[in-house]
């Protein structure tokens, strides 16, 4: 496989085919818990993306020196170090968002999507590809978070970018869009059950699109064998 098509494949896998949120269903806890508003979703998505890129690069860089027997604790330590950095940075620069994300920021350490990529891809591949893979997987995860956050915020409060100033600074409060206003909020969309229902619809939507595409192109592709180990971690 040439390097170019390797990158293409990595993007395809991370953003759509093997999306951590929609297909692997990893990191569901933060995915469902913090996506009450678009701003929260972007904040957590960016934090996860940053950690994923850095941890993938580091894991890949030291892959030849890590003994196989203790690799998981080492990966966890690396991830925890980066999460701590991100947490301190957010504490310093986006304090409001740091507070509204709460416990879910340090909990990125236990996000299976990150350790899954470290184990399944980064520990077996060179730094460049591993970093790119982290970027694509992180983007895929962040996109799902953002869609979910946007849907829930619109349904729940009728707004978009509510509290964007917490993430981007004071100027960003002009970003707040009031799509429609209710007398009473649709609380279900903001509560956890609404997150599960919305997530179910997102996954169903993705499957429907896949089925539609598959139906539109009947057997054009020859059987390409993709030499790639897809490891799905439970957690």
């Amino acid at each position: 496989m040439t390097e170019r098509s390797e990158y293409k494949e990595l993007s395809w896998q991370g953003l759509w085919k093997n999306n951590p949120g929609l297909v692997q269903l990893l990191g569901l806890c933060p995915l469902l818990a913090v996506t009450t508003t678009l701003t929260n979703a972007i904040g957590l998505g960016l934090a996860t993306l940053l950690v994923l890129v850095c941890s993938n690069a580091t894991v890949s860089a030291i892959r030849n020196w890590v003994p196989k027997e203790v690799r998981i604790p080492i990966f966890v330590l690396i991830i925890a170090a980066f999460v701590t950095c991100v947490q301190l940075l957010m504490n310093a620069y986006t304090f409001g968002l740091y507070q509204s994300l709460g416990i879910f920021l340090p909990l990125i350490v236990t996000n299976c999507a990150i350790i899954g990529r470290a184990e399944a891809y980064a520990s077996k591949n060179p730094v460049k590809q591993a970093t790119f893979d982290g970027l694509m997987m992180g983007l895929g995860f962040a996109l799902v978070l953002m869609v979910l956050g946007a849907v829930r915020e619109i349904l729940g409060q009728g707004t978009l970018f509510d509290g964007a100033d917490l993430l981007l600074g004071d100027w960003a409060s002009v970003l707040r869009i009031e799509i429609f206003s209710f007398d009473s909020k649709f609380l279900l969309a903001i509560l956890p059950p609404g997150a599960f229902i919305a997530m179910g619809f997102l996954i169903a939507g993705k499957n429907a699109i896949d089925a539609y595409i598959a139906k539109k192109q009947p057997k054009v592709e020859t059987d390409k064998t993709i030499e790639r180990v897809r490891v799905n971690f439970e957690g």
Partner: protein
Amino acid sequence: MTFWIASSPHNHIKAATPSLMRFVIMAAIPGVFAQWYFFGWGTIVQIALAILFAVLAEITFLAIRDKNIKSQITDFSAVLTGLLIGISVPSLAPWWITAIGSIFAIGVVKQLYGGLGFNLFNPAMAAYVLLLISFPLQMTSWQPVNSLLVDDISFFNNLWLVLTGYTWEGFSVEQIRMSVDGITMATPLDTLKTDLTLGLTVNESFANPVFGEFIGLGWEWVNIGFLLGGLLLIAKKAIDWVIPASFLGSLLIFSFIAYTISPDSSASTMFHWLSGGTMLGAFFILTDPVSAATTKKGRVLYAALAALLVYLIRKFGGYPDAIAFAVLLCNMAVPLIDQYCRPRTYGHKGVN
């Protein structure tokens, strides 16, 4: 399981789905009548709205799913779901509450799971819970019993109130809910719960006019109405008597235990039987053939679990009534209950 061997001619009991559903709908009439008598035309308006939206949603989703619309509409299951939603929604709730509930019940709870016979949860109760946690304010605004109101509300005013939020003369829901003394009225269950947290005893709380002379003005008759309809259903063998018997019996046991331990802070069994949605739940909702347990032993367990949950949530929970929550939680437990209550297969020893 017993096999009775009977010689021919065999008489087929014509228990097809449509006739069963129609019969259940008719059996709800005494309860609905009592609700209309005490809570005014709002009840009828809500039921009509709920049935309308439920049927429309059923037609829409069946069309999307490419199913035979005519045969599935005429089985009256959507009408029954609508009826149950209309009964449980407060009579003064705005129309969009009922619409959201009906569409959610049919679209998400029933059709997304595969239609009638495949739904894990009771559609009407799932919709009720959705509404209750999403719109707590509107969903708890029950109108006080007619006799406690300043003036009667006409049918037209009630319709107008549901559609616009104000009566024709411009009174809001809050103003309507004021009693003669100018105090907003709650349901008996709600009142009792609030009073107990304020440190009153049950007897002191019962001095409140919402309780009337017996258990709860109006509510007792609504429950008796549903009890009558339910007994009719049992007499005609439309529902299994085990579920209501186990439910009401367990509720009796639990409330009796609590009453013997602390009579001042526990309401009597009669209060639990005849307030809120107890009878509706016991005879019309827990007995839903799709989402209830299927074996005899399983049904006893299922209904007893529901009674325990109802009692615990009413006594310790944050919401005043608990039928809907208890039913949903029990629906979730049904596969497990059925797994462990499998009857012995004929010809085999013990549990397979």
